[in-house]
C-alpha cells in the first residue's frame, strides 16, 4: 500500500472516521490496530516479527533501564539493546553490503572466502523506527523520560503508520501527548491537513515523478550522455529529491495532523541554505537533530574525546584542539548518515563522507575565507553575497547527487568525469527536450510547479503560513485552491498504466 495510492487514502478516510467516532480513551488503540494493518498490508504479516522484536525490546529494555539503580548496569542494558537493534537493522538492510565488503577484502588479501549475494526483504520503516527506539531508550537512560508502562501504547509509538514510510524520525517526548490523548475532531484542522496532503501529492506526483523521467532517461544510459546532459539532470534530481521527500513529508504530516497527532517538521526550505551545515539543519531535520543528540554530542562529550581535545590543545593550540576532535566526531557521524541512506559505497560517499569533507574543510578554512572577505571588503550581509552562498551550497550538494543518481560509486565517478570532459551547453534547448525524456508540456509543468514551490518557500521563509492564509479567505477561494490542487494532481500527476508507481525515494532508505 503506497501512500500515494487510492487504497491508502481509502484506508486513511476509514481510520479517520472510526477514530473520531470511537470512545476518546480508546482512540489511540484504534490507531494501533490501523498501524498494524498498514504494516501488514505494506509488507506482509511475516514481517511483523521484526516489528514486534523492536517493540518488545524497546518496552522491556526501557523498563529495565528505569528500574535498575546501578549506572553501570543501566549502561550495559542500553548498550546491549542498541546493539541488538542495530544488528537487526544491519542484518536486514546491510547484509548485501557487508558480503560485498567481505568479498572485496577476500580479493585484496587473496583469501578463498567468497559469499554469494544475500538479499533479505526488510520491513517498511525499519530505518526510521529503529532510530526512534534508540532515541527513546537513550532518553530513558538519561532520565529525561519515564518509560511507557503500557506495551500497546509503546507499540503505537513504534508502529504509528503515517511515519512508517519515510519518517520523520520522531522522539517520544514530541508526540506522546497528542498520540495517546484521543484528540477531538477539529474541522479546520482536518481541512488544513487535507490541504497539506494535496500539496504533498502535487509535489510528489506532478513535479518529482515528472523530474524522475528526466533523471532516469539520462542516468540509466550514462554511457550515452555527457557534459550538460549530466549537469542539468543532476540539478533536476536535486529538485526531484526535494519535491519527492518534502512531498512525502507533507502527506505524512498532513495525515497525522488529521488525527490531531503532531509530528515534527522535517524541512525548512533547505535550498535556501548558505552553507552545508545550515542545509542539514533544514533538510531531514529530524535525522540531523537525532544524529547530533545521540551520536555527535555523546561522542564529543565522551572521556576519550575530551582527553584527545585537551592533548591537542596543549600541543597545537586552541583551534586545533577544538576542531580536530569535532572533525573526527563528524567523520563517524557522516559515515553513519551515509550508511543509513543505503548499504553501498555510493551512499556512504554521497550522502555521508562528501558532506563530512565539505563541512570539515569549511571549518579548517573558515579563517582563511574570513580574511579573503575582509581583504576584498565583501559585504557578507548583502543579497548578492547571500545568493552566491546559496548557489554555491546548492552546487556543492549537486556533486554528491551525481553519485546518488548513478548505479554505483564507480559509475558516479565515470559520470562526473563525463560531465567535466564534454562541453555541450547547446543540448539544453527546448528542441532537445526529447533527449531528456519529456516534451514541452512536461517542461512547462515542471517549470510552473517549481516556480510555485519557490513562491511558497519564499513566503514561508518570510514567516507566512500559506495554509493558514488560504483558510482565512472566503469559502469560494478556499475551494478553488483545494479543487485546483486536487485536479492538478489527478490530471497532471504521473501515474496510471504504463507507469510503475514510483515509491518515495526516502522510503527506500
Amino acid at each position: 500500500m503506497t501512500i500515494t495510492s487510492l487504497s491508502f487514502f481509502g484506508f486513511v478516510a476509514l481510520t479517520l472516521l472510526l477514530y473520531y467516532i470511537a470512545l476518546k480513551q480508546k482512540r489511540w488503540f484504534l490507531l494501533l490496530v490501523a498501524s498494524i494493518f498498514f504494516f501488514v498490508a505494506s509488507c506482509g504479516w511475516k514481517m511483523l516479527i521484526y516489528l514486534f522484536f523492536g517493540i518488545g525490546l524497546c518496552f522491556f529494555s526501557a523498563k529495565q533501564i528505569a528500574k535498575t539503580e546501578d549506572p553501570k548496569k543501566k549502561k550495559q542494558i542500553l548498550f546491549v539493546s542498541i546493539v541488538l537493534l542495530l544488528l537487526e537493522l544491519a542484518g536486514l538492510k546491510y547484509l548485501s553490503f557487508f558480503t560485498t565488503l567481505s568479498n572485496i577484502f577476500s580479493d585484496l588479501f587473496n583469501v578463498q572466502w567468497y559469499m554469494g549475494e544475500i538479499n533479505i526483504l526488510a520491513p517498511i520503516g525499519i530505518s526510521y523506527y529503529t532510530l526512534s527506539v534508540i532515541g527513546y531508550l537513550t532518553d530513558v537512560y538519561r532520565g529525561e523520560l519515564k518509560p511507557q508502562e503500557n506495551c500497546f501504547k509503546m507499540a503505537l509509538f513504534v508502529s504509528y503508520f503515517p511515519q512508517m514510510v519515510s519518517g520523520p524520525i520522531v522522539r517520544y517526548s514530541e508526540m506522546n501527548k497528542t498520540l495517546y490523548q484521543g484528540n477531538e475532531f477539529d474541522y479546520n484542522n482536518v481541512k488544513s491537513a487535507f490541504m497539506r496532503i494535496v500539496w504533498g501529492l502535487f509535489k510528489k506526483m506532478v513535479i518529482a515523478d515528472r523530474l524522475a523521467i528526466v533523471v532516469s532517461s539520462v542516468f540509466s544510459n550514462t554511457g550515452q550522455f555527457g557534459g550538460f546532459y549530466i549537469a542539468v539532470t543532476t540539478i533536476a534530481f536535486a529538485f526531484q529529491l526535494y519535491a519527492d521527500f518534502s512531498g512525502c513529508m507533507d502527506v505524512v504530516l498532513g495525515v497525522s495532523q488529521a488525527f490531531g497527532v503532531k509530528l515534527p517538521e522535517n524541512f525548512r526550505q533547505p535550498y535556501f541554505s548558505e552553507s552545508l551545515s545550515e542545509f542539514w539543519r533544514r533538510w531531514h531535520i529530524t535525522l540531523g537533530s537525532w544524529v547530533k543528540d545521540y551520536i555527535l554530542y555523546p561522542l564529543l562529550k565522551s572521556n576519550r574525546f575530551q582527553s584527545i581535545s585537551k592533548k591537542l590543545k596543549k600541543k597545537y593550540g586552541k583551534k586545533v584542539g577544538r576542531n580536530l576532535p569535532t572533525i573526527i566526531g563528524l567523520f563517524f557521524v557522516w559515515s553513519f548518515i551515509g550508511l543509513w541512506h543505503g548499504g553501498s559505497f555510493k551512499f556512504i560517499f554521497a550522502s555521508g563522507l562528501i558532506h563530512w569533507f565539505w563541512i570539515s574543510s569549511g571549518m579548517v578554512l573558515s579563517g582563511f575565507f574570513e580574511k579573503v572577505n575582509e581583504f576584498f571588503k565583501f559585504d557578507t550581509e548583502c543579497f548578492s553575497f547571500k545568493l552566491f552562498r546559496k548557489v554555491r551550497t546548492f552546487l556543492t550538494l549537486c556533486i554528491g547527487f551525481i553519485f546518488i543518481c548513478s548505479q554505483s560509486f564507480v559509475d558516479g565517478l565515470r559520470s562526473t568525469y563525463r560531465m567535466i570532459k564534454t562541453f555541450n551547453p547547446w543540448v539544453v534547448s527546448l528542441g532537445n527536450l526529447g533527449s531528456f525524456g519529456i516534451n514541452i508540456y512536461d517542461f512547462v509543468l515542471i517549470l510552473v510547479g517549481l516556480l510555485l514551490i519557490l513562491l511558497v518557500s519564499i513566503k514561508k521563509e518570510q514567516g507566512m503560513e500559506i495554509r493558514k492564509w488560504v483558510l482565512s479567505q472566503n469559502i469560494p477561494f478556499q475551494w478553488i485552491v483545494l479543487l485546483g490542487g486536487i485536479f492538478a494532481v489527478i490530471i497532471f500527476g504521473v501515474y496510471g498504466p504504463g507507469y510503475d508507481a514510483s515509491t518515495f525515494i526516502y522510503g527506500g532508505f
Partner: protein
Amino acid sequence: MENNKKQIPWIRLLSFVFIFFFLLIQVTQLLTSKDGEQKQEIDYLFYNEFDKSFADVWLMGSSQTYCALTPTVIYHESGISSVNFSASNQTMVYVYYKIQEMLNDGFQPKVVVLDCVGLRTLSQEPGEDGSHFENSFRRGVLLLNSWRSKIEYVCALEDEYNGSYFGNYLFPLERFHSRWSELGKGDYYPKGDKISVEMGALLDTRIKEISASKQNGDLSLKCELNPHEVKYLLKTIDLLKQNGVDVLVVKWPDSYTDDALHNSIQEVCTQAEVDFLDLNTPNVSKILQNQYTLSYKTDFYNYDHLNAWGNEKVSRFFGKYLEQNYSLPDHRGESSYVFMDTYYKTLAQSYPEVFESK
C-alpha cells in the same frame, strides 16, 4: 468559538463533495479517449436530428459492417431508411445494451441487422492493455448514453469475464488522465460539428486483391464460437422479438468464412429462429459477382474489409435484399427524407471515383 470548531458544516462539506464529483465526471469525459468519435456523431444525429421513427433498419456490428453498408446508398437504391451503428470489434454484449437503451428511449426499428463476425473470435478479454478488443469494450461505455446502461453493460462484462472493470471502465481517469496534452477538437465536441453523409459507413479507397472464401456446402464441419457472443446474440434476438422487430444475422464477404464457421453460425440462427444471410455462400457470392460486379481483385482493402467500391456494390445488393425479403416502406419522395437525396449527392461528390459511373 470552541463549539464552532467541533461543528461540522455538513452542507458545505456535501456541496464540496458534489462539486468535486461533478468536476470529476466532466474531467473524466473530457480526457477519455474518443475512440468512437465518429460513432458518437451517429448517435447524436440519431437522437437529436432525426425523428424517432426515421430509421427502419438498424445496422449493428463490427468494422465489416461499416465497410460493407452505406445507409445513404441503401436509401438511394431502395428507399429504405437505415443507420449504421457498427464500430470496430463491436461486441454482442454492447449491441444488446445499446439496442435495449434505444428501444427504451422510444425508437422503433422494423429490422435489426446483426453482423456475427465477433462470434468467431475466441480471445476477447476486457481489462487487458493491448488486447485487440480492449478499445471496443471501452468504447461501449462511451457510446451508451445513460448511466444505467453503462453500469449494466460494465456489470455484464464483469459477469461474463469474471473480472473487476467497474472503476476502470466507468471512471477511466487513471488510464486517460495523461491525455491532457493531446486533447483535440474531437474531445471538446465529441458529437461532431458536421453531418456525416456516410451515416456510419466507412468508404476506404485502398485496393487489395484477396481470395474469396471457400465454401463447399459441407454440413458436417463445425467450429467453436465465442460463448459470450453467442449468449448475447441470443439475448439480443429475444429482446428484439419481444419488441416485434425482425432480426437478420449477416456475414459480410471476406476471405475466411468457411463451411465450419458458416454451419456453426447457421446452427445458432436456426436455434434462435432468425434468418442468416452469408454473403460468402456460393449462391449469394455468384449474385454479387455477376449482378453487382463485386470483384475480389478490386473491391476489398484487406482480407476481410470491403473498400469504397465494394461498399457501394454490397449496399445496393443489400438494399434490394431488404426490399425483397421484408416489408419495409420506400421513403423516397417523403418530405422528411428529402435530405437523404442531398446526402447521396454530397456522398457522390465526395467519392467521384466510386460514384461517377452511377
